[in-house]
């Protein structure tokens, strides 16, 4: 027991969890749990009128809307409820948002893949429409008038001819007695009547955010909790041989040392294993770890070195690989063609480095586990915790706090499982806190990838044959260590769907064994695929002496719908008839960004240049123009970025602009300094000094975002801005310097 413990206990442990605040996501549930109600109950469930799992209306007119998706900065916690509120014709000021726990009744909750709006737009609209229909019925009944004569007007039902009005709150009780209507009876509002869709709103949590009241996973706490920090095997699959369990206990505040079992392959979302130090505060746990003096058995992944691995990937890509798409006969053309261009592109492993390191709080009690975690995927938390603890999934309650960034890392709940395992062993609440070093060394990295590009060119420099091979350790390797080929879900990401109208095209993918955990990172495989295709396109344009914009438009060709004959193309899980791949939309954003950026009137050469790239990902079409200035020392500045996007219907334009501004910065980090490497299986980087991310003076000075006005169904906005930015940035560097970036980050070519 340290003095810290005593002081904290005396002054601050007053029972219950987490101090009050607008975003105390767990607190409302906890007393209900204790008083015998079901832990998943929401205020919406208990509201007077409750026509949908997402919605409740109380007698005082309060509208409860359940946010079932995680909030990590993309504003989905605000934007989806906004869609429901619009269809309900509710006053946004009277809406209260509550965060859902992990529960399959909400459908998919894995907040990844830029699909929150796309997948839940209809569900939100139907929920709002159902309640509005019922409220109108109740009012009509009360007034003895036909329902067709009634309408809604911002939180009230009105009967114009008799000038009668009734608020949603006062109608709630009577409405609750009516049957829930069938979908066929409902009519959605026409676009002309939309209040919020297309106009947007700032974050529901904005004031809490700027005053330090917002509660993240890092801020969650429970009465009686202890803190844990875990020393994990430095090489994937390693095991503890021996450790010192005496010295750490001499550190003030350290209570206990607990081993965590190594995982049985495949790693999936299991804890990595290692030794946990349990203490009275976070810092004491960190200090105790330094005294563990662990000896490791590193296992087979000790052979992994990034330098030689890069050579292996490249060698693989220089030989025939598995054909994943073929049009015409590229080899026949190569055999007789005089002019052939070839290039190798390479992108290293990338770490997520969200500002909030991984963290989770768990309480195992009476055979049930309750978690508070910044997770993108609470149902996956339920799965892994139930497996690790040997309890039913229903006995795992996962509260979702705000996330201090996620970028895909927090879809993998290994860190939450650690907390659960430790809480069971300790018999009290445990909060596991990852250091930044842990966060960078034990990531699920974006795959290292090597791309070989080859084109034969004819008149006008246009390709007569095109071959592209990519080789990267695939994400499915975390679920089956023998998986070495890219799967359709990742080959589709800017690779099998190359948008050019090419008479002879062959796309291949080669095998690569993973030695670290590979995972989803914002934009995923699109990062390396778009980099290779869009920079190679720029190479061919320059080789032909043509303007890169004209050349790009020439390759995209006339508007058409891409047909995926003989290709497994999942289209990001969306139906191709609802979300066809339309090259005309890519062409349109390319023309739009060219016009808005003043392409053609901009300076080139002598250290200044602009570059362009276009790419569709997550069903959204984006074109980007980047301007750079490069001085004699190779220092690169980015004065201006222009981005045009067609994401179909955009519910929240302000949040969308913010996502694309952020994508330019995320892309800047990847291109300028993003590189994770391993030596003998151990990750070389550890913190922001050797895994730098972009700081304020390094990012674009000005990013302009142009949104195409579209009635097409909504598509993604969180990820699609990143891939074309990186390619356009490297193309701009070529325009400014004549040096072609083929290996990322740009420091490889002497730029900074």
């Amino acid at each position, binding site marked *: 027991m340290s003095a810290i413990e005593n002081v904290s206990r005396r002054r601050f442990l007053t029972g219950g969890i987490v101090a009050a605040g607008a975003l105390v996501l767990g607190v409302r549930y906890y007393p209900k749990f204790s008083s015998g109600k079901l832990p998943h109950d929401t205020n919406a469930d208990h509201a007077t009128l409750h026509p949908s799992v997402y919605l409740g209306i109380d007698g005082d007119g309060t509208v409860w809307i359940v946010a079932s998706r995680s*909030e990590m900065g993309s504003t989905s916690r605000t934007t989806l409820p906004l869609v429901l509120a619009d269809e309900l014709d509710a006053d946004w000021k009277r809406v209260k948002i509550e965060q859902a726990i992990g529960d399959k009744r909400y459908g998919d909750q894995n907040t990844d893949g830029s699909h929150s709006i796309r997948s839940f737009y209809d569900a939100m609209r139907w929920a709002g429409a159902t309640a509005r229909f019922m409220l109108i019925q109740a009012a009509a009944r009360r007034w003895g008038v036909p329902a067709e004569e009634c309408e809604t007007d911002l939180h009230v039902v009105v009967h114009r001819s008799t000038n009668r009005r009734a608020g949603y709150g006062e109608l709630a009780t009577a409405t609750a007695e009516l049957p829930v209507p069938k979908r066929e009876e409902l009519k959605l509002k026409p676009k002309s009547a939309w209040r919020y869709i297309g106009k947007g709103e700032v974050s529901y949590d904005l004031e809490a955010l700027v005053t330090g009241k917002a509660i993240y996973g890092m801020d969650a706490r429970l009465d009686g909790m202890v803190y844990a920090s875990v020393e994990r095997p430095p090489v994937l699959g390693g095991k503890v041989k021996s450790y010192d369990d005496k010295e750490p206990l001499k550190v003030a505040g350290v209570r206990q040392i607990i081993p965590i079992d190594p995982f049985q392959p495949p790693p999936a979302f299991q804890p990595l294993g290692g030794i946990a130090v349990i203490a009275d505060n976070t810092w004491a746990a960190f200090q105790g770890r330094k005294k563990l003096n662990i000896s490791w058995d590193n296992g087979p992944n000790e052979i992994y070195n990034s330098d030689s691995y890069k050579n292996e990937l490249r060698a693989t890509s220089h030989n025939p690989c598995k054909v994943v798409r073929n049009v015409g006969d590229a080899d026949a053309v190569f055999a007789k063609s005089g002019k052939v261009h070839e290039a190798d592109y390479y992108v290293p492993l990338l770490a997520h480095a969200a500002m909030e390191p991984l963290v989770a709080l768990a309480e195992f009690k009476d055979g049930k586990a309750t978690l508070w975690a910044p997770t993108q995927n609470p149902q996956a938390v339920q799965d892994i915790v139930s497996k690790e603890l040997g309890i039913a999934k229903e006995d795992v309650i996962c509260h979702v706090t705000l996330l*201090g960034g996620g970028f895909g890392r927090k879809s993998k709940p290994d860190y939450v499982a650690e907390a659960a395992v430790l809480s069971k062993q300790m018999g009290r609440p445990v909060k596991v806190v990852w250091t930044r070093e842990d966060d960078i060394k034990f990531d699920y990295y974006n795959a290292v990838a090597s791309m070989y590009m080859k084109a034969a060119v004819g008149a006008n420099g246009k390709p007569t044959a095109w071959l592209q091979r990519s080789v990267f350790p695939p994400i499915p390797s975390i679920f089956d260590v023998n998986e070495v080929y890219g799967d359709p879900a990742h080959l589709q990401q800017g690779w099998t769907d190359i948008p050019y109208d090419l008479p002879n095209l062959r796309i291949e993918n080669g095998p690569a064994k993973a030695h670290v955990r590979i995972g989803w990172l914002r934009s995923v495989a699109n990062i390396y695929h778009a980099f290779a295709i869009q920079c190679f396109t720029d190479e061919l344009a320059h080789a032909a002496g043509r303007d890169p914009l004209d050349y790009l438009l020439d390759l995209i060709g006339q508007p058409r719908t891409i047909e995926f004959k003989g290709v497994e193309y999942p289209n990001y899980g969306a139906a191709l008839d609802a979300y066809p791949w339309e090259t005309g939309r890519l062409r349109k954003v390319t023309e739009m960004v060219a016009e808005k950026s003043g392409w053609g009137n901009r300076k080139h050469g002598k250290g200044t240049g602009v570059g362009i790239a276009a790419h569709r990902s997550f069903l959204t079409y984006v074109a980007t123009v980047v301007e750079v200035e490069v001085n004699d020392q190779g220092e690169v500045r980015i004065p201006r970025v222009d981005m045009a996007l067609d994401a179909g219907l955009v519910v929240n334009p302000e949040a969308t602009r913010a996502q694309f501004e952020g994508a330019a910065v995320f892309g800047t980090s990847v291109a300028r300094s993003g590189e994770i490497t391993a030596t003998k299986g151990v990750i070389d980087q550890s913190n922001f000094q050797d895994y730098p991310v972009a700081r304020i003076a390094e990012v674009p000075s000005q990013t302009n975002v142009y949104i195409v006005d579209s009635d097409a169904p909504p598509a993604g906005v969180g990820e699609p801005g990143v891939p074309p930015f990186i390619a356009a940035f490297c193309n701009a560097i070529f325009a400014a310097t004549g040096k072609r970036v083929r290996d990322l980050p740009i420091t490889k070519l002497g730029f900074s």
Partner: protein
Amino acid sequence: MIQLKVNGLEQSFGGEPELPLLWYLRDVLWLTGSKFGCGVGLCGACTVHVNGQATRSCVTAMRDAAGKEVTTVEGLDKSGLHPVQKAWMQINVPQCDYCQGGQIMQAAALLDSKKNPTDHEIDEAMSGNICRCGTYQRIRAAIKAAAEEMA
């Protein structure tokens, strides 16, 4: 015992003098507005004011906070919202927001010393604060808006 003031309140601390101020604020006082981001003073998420100066609380030992006045984002403006916080709302700066408490404290200290900072001065002052979501363009705009408000 180490005596200090936090957000205007007298506090005394009898634990490890090497304990970083950040963990005293977070784990002892449970003022969680100051965030843990890197632990080595590289990201700025933990920024507080110590005697009015922007300070990385993750690398400031309690012994060095003795006798000092510490202000966290929760205590930046006792009457409500500081002009920097208002500007952050007006320009809609935050995305995930985890770093923004530190950004706000850094910006408030900047505007205490410079009434109308240039772009270059803003970049200089804010270069120790990382935002992984990439809100830098809005941070710059919000600092200018706050400067105007405070003029």
